[in-house]
């Protein structure tokens, strides 16, 4: 029988999008719906004296204007800390600014009108009297004694700090033959989902029920948040996430505006819609990264890595994001450093600093690109210092494929990875010797090309160690209800969600294989707390690994149920039966009864069944990961670039990825996850940056000013796989959504620096803009002429 796990099945739900029949929250309109527009702080830091809404209130179409006094009273404040981040602080946050404004764009008033246009007209007439205060816009300065406070409700500007060290790290550096160092800066960027954040909160006062149509990855998390913060019974809160136009981690955080829509709907008893416009997206969607890192690496004379030491300053907003915090990013940066390498000693220091900018938090590949870029830049410098080839130094230091299980110097437990096999495969794909020869000959014509590589690990399939242990009400388990319909078709309702990755497709493939049917006979429902069981949903690369395993186990329980019933119907031992091609077959492979016939009898003629037999063809199953705290994946990427040394422009010529995500459920979807991920890594490496001036004004908050990667700048991406299934589950799948993003920027930076090597120039800051490349060339020139 054909197995569907492993097949490149197309996405059934893609057909709707191709026909223009996507159903996004931003497409939805409800009767009596009001449109919300927020009046925002024009300055990064200040004290509110007066908000005058009288003129705005008189505008046509305006139904209500809220300020903090009325709206915040409906909502308990949220605090973005986690218990396992010892000593972490974050002041409480509520919907609208009460006295202090804390970032440019901080909502201070909410206008509700019959149309968006009318609400915008009125919002312009809300008069704000806010006294300017000095903003904190530099994380390093923020941590100096006596620095002004980014948030007056905080003790100081240090949100969180942590140190991770082994006993012998100083001795390792003292005894090293080589020590290489790097100071690196990683710009602040943001998710720029093409569909902005969108919510419609619909409170029905007659029934006390709140329904929130919410473009999010995590409907259950928001069901809990809305229930607790608005004092509603959980059973009265329904969150529906229909089609979501991109999320990438950005749409699972709590935002002032969504909470505002819910509060307004509760007060007014009418549906309230908020859809961010693009400027608002830049001013309110979480930003990502924003790190300043100093790293050094100790090596022996043969080029063996002995130790690393790293200081990461993560610069966040004026509060820590809720409920996942703004500290998880930095925490993962210091824990992922050097992860692919056999390295016995390590010290990582993390400082997380408040600033008067948009809050930062988890975005695709949390912490990974930073840890990878620092580690791989140091490895590259180590190769230079020891005279080793980039492939050779990695071959000497990567954890050997036969050396598992392995515990990293930062405490991560690796079950089984395949770094060496990936490195060998990448070497075969890239043919570095040929590239080098070509580059040497092109240099004679004034063409500067370079390649770079970067090994990585990716954290996937997280258990409760991520958030649950810290007290966050974020589910580490998922649930599925699988049922056979009277026709013999199968339906699966599952808690993992779809944002275009292909979640529903792979769940259908997995369930189909357990029940001996084709995936076409399996329909899948996701994204609605009223119709699917509770679970963590899709984030941190858990959809395939944890969601897939949940579906597999649920499918097997239904299979057993069907076989028991079939045994009674055909007078056979259920243990001698199995499901194949839509029927129950015996040991000889002969079909004994079809699923359709079982469905018919169980549904319409249960009177003909033997007494006492269970004919319920619905099973519910929940699964939480056990075994390793995370299932790590691994891989390596290569980048080929050409740098125009006159203009600083970079052409990205080619990108390679070798990736090991364990069991591949659908190779078509896996490869497209990798490609999309790579481009989300290349974007911030070359283009994307939220630029702030010294006053804390975001100066490039539009798609004309904030550069995103476009088709003509992106390369073709060649992908290969090694498959090392995890033994933690029956399915053996790990995650893949963040792998591309984890190492693409690191490989690209090494490639740019390889191209600039003849000039002695080196980039240490992202994005690697033409200006920064020219500056690096200038600096190298000055150093040569004036040593």
């Amino acid at each position, binding site marked *: 029988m054909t197995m569907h796990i492993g097949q490149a099945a197309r996405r059934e739900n893609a057909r709707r999008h*191709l026909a*223009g029949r996507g159903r996004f929250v931003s497409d939805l309109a409800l009767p009596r719906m009001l449109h919300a527009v927020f009046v925002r702080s024009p300055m990064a830091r200040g004290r509110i004296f007066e908000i005058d809404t009288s003129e705005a209130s008189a505008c046509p179409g305006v139904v209500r204007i809220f300020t903090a006094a009325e709206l915040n009273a409906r909502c308990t404040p949220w605090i973005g800390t986690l218990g396992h981040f010892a000593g972490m602080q974050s002041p409480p946050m509520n919907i609208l600014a009460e006295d202090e404004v804390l970032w440019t764009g901080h909502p201070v008033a909410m206008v509700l009108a019959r149309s968006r246009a009318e609400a915008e007209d009125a919002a312009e007439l809300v008069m704000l009297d806010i006294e300017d205060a000095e903003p904190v816009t530099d994380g390093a300065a923020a941590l100096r004694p006596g620095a002004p406070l980014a948030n007056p409700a905080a003790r100081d500007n240090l949100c969180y700090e942590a140190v991770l060290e082994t006993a012998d790290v100083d001795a390792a550096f003292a005894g090293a033959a080589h020590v290489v160092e790097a100071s690196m800066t990683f710009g602040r960027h943001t998710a720029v989902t093409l569909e902005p954040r969108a919510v419609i909160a619909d409170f029905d006062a007659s029934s006390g029920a709140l329904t929130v149509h919410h473009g999010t990855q995590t409907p259950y998390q928001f069901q809990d948040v809305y229930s607790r913060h608005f004092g509603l019974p959980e059973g009265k809160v329904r969150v529906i996430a229909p089609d979501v*136009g991109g999320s990438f981690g950005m749409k699972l955080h709590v935002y002032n505006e969504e909470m505002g829509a819910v509060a307004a709907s509760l007060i007014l008893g009418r549906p309230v819609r908020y859809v961010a416009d693009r400027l608002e997206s830049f001013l309110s969607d979480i930003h990502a990264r924003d790190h300043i890192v100093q790293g050094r690496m100790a090596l022996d004379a043969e080029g063996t890595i002995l130790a690393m030491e790293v200081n990461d300053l993560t610069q966040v907003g004026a509060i820590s994001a809720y409920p996942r915090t703004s500290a998880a990013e930095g925490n993962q940066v210091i824990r992922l450093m050097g992860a692919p390498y056999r390295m016995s000693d390590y010290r990582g220091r993390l400082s997380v600093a408040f600033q008067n900018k948009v809050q930062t938090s988890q975005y695709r590949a949390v912490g990974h690109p930073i840890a990878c870029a620092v580690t791989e830049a140091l490895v590259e410098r180590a190769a230079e210092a020891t005279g080793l080839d980039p492939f050779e130094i990695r071959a000497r230091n990567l954890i050997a494929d036969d050396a598992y299980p392995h515990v990293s110097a930062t405490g991560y437990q690796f079950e089984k990875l395949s770094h060496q096999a990936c490195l060998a495969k990448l070497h075969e794909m890239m043919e570095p010797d040929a590239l080098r020869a070509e580059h040497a000959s092109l240099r004679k014509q004034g063409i500067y090309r370079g390649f770079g590589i970067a090994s990585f690990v990716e954290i996937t399939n997280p258990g409760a160690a991520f958030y649950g242990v810290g007290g966050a009400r974020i589910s580490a388990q998922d649930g599925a209800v699988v049922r056979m319909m009277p026709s013999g078709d199968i339906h699966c309702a599952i808690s993992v969600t779809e944002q275009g990755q292909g979640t529903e497709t792979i769940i259908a493939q997995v369930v189909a294989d357990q029940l001996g049917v084709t995936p076409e006979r399996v329909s899948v429902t996701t994204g609605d707390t009223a119709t699917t069981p509770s679970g963590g949903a899709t984030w941190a690369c858990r959809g395939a690994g944890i969601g897939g395993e949940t579906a597999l186990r649920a499918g097997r329980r239904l299979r057993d149920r069907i076989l028991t019933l079939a045994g009674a119907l055909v007078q056979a031992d259920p243990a001698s039966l199995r499901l194949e091609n839509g029927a129950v077959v015996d040991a000889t492979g002969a079909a004994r009864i079809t699923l359709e016939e079982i469905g018919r009898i169980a549904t319409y003629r249960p009177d003909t069944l033997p007494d006492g037999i269970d004919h319920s063809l619905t099973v519910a199953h929940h699964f939480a990961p056990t075994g390793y705290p995370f299932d790590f994946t691994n891989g390596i990427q290569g980048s080929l670039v050409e740098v125009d040394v006159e203009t600083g422009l970079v052409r990205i010529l080619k990108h390679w990825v070798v990736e090991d995500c364990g069991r591949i459920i659908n190779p078509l979807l896996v490869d*497209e996850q990798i490609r*999309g*991920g790579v481009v989300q890594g290349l974007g911030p490496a070359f283009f994307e940056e939220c630029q702030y001036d010294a006053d804390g004004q975001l100066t490039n908050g539009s798609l004309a000013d904030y550069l995103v990667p476009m*088709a003509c700048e992106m390369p073709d991406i060649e992908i290969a796989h090694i498959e090392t299934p995890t033994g933690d589950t029956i399915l053996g799948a790990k995650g893949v959504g963040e792998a591309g993003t984890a190492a693409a920027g690191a490989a690209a930076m090494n490639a740019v620096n390889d191209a600039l090597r003849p000039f002695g120039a080196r980039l240490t800051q992202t994005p690697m803009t033409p200006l920064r490349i020219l500056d690096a060339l200038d600096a190298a020139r000055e150093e040569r002429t004036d040593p």
Partner: protein
Amino acid sequence: MKHLLTTTVNGEQVQEAVSPRTSLADFLREDMGLTGTHLGCEMGACGACLVLMDGAPVHACLVLAVQAEGCTVETIEGLTETGAAADLQARFHDRNALQCGYCTNGMLMSAQALLAANPDPSRDEIRDALSGNYCRCTGYEAIVDAIAATASDRAALPETKAEAAE
């Protein structure tokens, strides 16, 4: 003061009173219920709102509804119903050239316009033609592949069919 707009949308003549400031995108989405046209930036940078106006792709967010007076407007829903882009849509599906689906309308419009003007584009020409279409999910390669495959398919068609496909 509303203006009485008469225009042809997906082959149907419509008359609707619209505010002078209403964009074509808002008119299509809110008044006509044609939500397949998406809004990503409302400043003509992302391409999610592309529609065909008198056969040429335009940003529906930058065109006022009143400017469509007497024009023919075709949206993704219309293109789907006529089958004019059915082969392109099928290739996008085969190649998984979409993930969240929010950019897909615009990608199809750009691709359709490109292939009408240049039936045999190189990969670079395809990438260039998509220079005003932002996709956050795919990394673009699958979209380029799908458009290239459609071009080959159409080239292999007998001439009459190829013309009909336009």
